[in-house]
């Protein structure tokens, strides 16, 4: 049954990918990319990877679509005609495809329990998590504690991406030479003129924020954690910006605060590592943070997940404002 679902979802994804390549209308391509991410999320969920599915749905289908649309609002909706050599590109793609298909023959059968990925460190993680860390969600234990270095690296990748976008767009918002120079009042005003989405949005934003906090702090027990929660909280603020206007959102969470969040979250993560070092343990070894090693692990995971969430929220909102605050060129 799972195989049937998997084949169905994967064929839908292939169809969507072909449609993305075929379309010349970039708006359509962006929406199709969102659909692609949603299908991928469903596929992850079918494969029992609920944490990854949540991340893919929140970031791939949600926030990236908004950022792409923000980029389209600055440029244009139609693809430029491409006159380069298509035959060469097609043959390179064909050869690569054949090599990849040939490589799959060496892979273990789908769901094979003897596959190397199930034999290497996974049994050790499953065995050690109840003893050493004692939280039900092994994914969070692996992500936060066993592989804390990797997650630290991921946070810095997100942080670096945010810095890169801010450098490209200019960290300071472009000087506003009065409201008159803007092409109309509409971009800064959001949907203020339009009642129904505003009423429903105002009703929902507190619950979205609450759900974000739930995902953040429930990550030890169920699917969730800092990455997903950061994306959900950023989505709530972006919804606020769309409804009430971008400037109103900047009044609530100013640029300086967002940059502080970006750096502060990564700093909190690194700081937990240094604190463990000062208390006599290894870098990011949370056991020494409290008298009881298991309580120390819990405290460490809580703190670093908070750091992840803060950085992701700050980066996503900074990138959104970098796109939204810029006038069309």
């Amino acid at each position, binding site marked *: 049954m799972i195989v049937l679902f998997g084949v169905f979802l994967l064929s839908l994804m292939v169809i969507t990918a072909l449609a993305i390549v075929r379309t010349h209308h970039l708006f359509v391509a962006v929406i199709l990319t969102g659909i692609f991410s949603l299908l991928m999320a469903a596929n992850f969920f079918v494969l029992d990877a609920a944490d990854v599915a949540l991340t893919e749905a929140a970031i791939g289908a949600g926030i990236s679509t908004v950022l792409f649309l923000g980029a389209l609002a600055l440029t244009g909706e139609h693809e430029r005609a491409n006159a380069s050599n298509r035959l060469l590109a097609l043959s390179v793609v064909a050869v690569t495809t054949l090599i990849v298909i040939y490589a799959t023959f060496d892979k273990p059968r789908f769901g094979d329990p003897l596959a190397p990925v199930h034999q290497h460190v996974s049994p050790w993680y499953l065995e050690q998590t109840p003893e050493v860390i004692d939280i039900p969600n092994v994914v969070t234990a692996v992500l936060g504690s066993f592989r804390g270095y990797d997650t630290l690296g991921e946070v810095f990748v997100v942080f670096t991406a945010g810095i890169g976008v801010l450098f490209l767009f200019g960290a300071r918002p472009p000087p506003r030479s009065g409201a008159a120079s803007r092409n109309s009042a509409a971009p800064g005003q959001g*949907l203020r003129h*339009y009642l*129904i*989405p505003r009423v*429903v*949005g105002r*009703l*929902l934003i507190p*619950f979205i924020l609450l759900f974000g906090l739930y995902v953040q702090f429930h990550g030890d027990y169920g699917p969730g954690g800092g990455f997903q929660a950061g994306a959900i909280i950023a989505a709530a603020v972006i919804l606020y910006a769309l409804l009430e206007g971008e400037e109103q959102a900047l009044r609530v969470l100013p640029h300086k605060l967002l940059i502080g969040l970006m750096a502060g979250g990564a700093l909190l993560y690194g700081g937990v590592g240094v604190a463990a070092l000062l208390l006599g343990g290894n870098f990011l070894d949370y056991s020494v943070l409290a008298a009881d090693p298991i309580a120390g692990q819990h405290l460490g995971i809580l703190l670093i997940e908070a750091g992840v969430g803060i950085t992701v929220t700050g980066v996503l909102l900074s990138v959104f404002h970098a796109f939204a605050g810029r006038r069309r060129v």
Partner: protein
Amino acid sequence: MALLLDIASWALLSIGGAFVFIGGVGALRMPDLYTRIHAASLTDTMGAVLVIFGIMLQAGLSLAAVKLAAILLFLLLTSPTASNALASAALLAGLRPGDDATSQEEQSK
């Protein structure tokens, strides 16, 4: 009792599935954007309500049922709002009911 619940649940799921299917056919076959939105909104409302009630019967009185109820409430609030915003945006962009959005685009090319 369990059998009765199962039958009721599967009936709800099948009718909900039928509504989703009709919504999909309507979204493809209806002549202009507004009627297509109308057809697709059938999926969000009747389809979602029936399918989620069907799953709630399967879940029984548990935390899962409460979560499904929350999802249902969220869908009932957001989907009609999204449809309304879409139709309103199309109207603001100057698409009159009766115009076919795709054929209009082809004419403008």
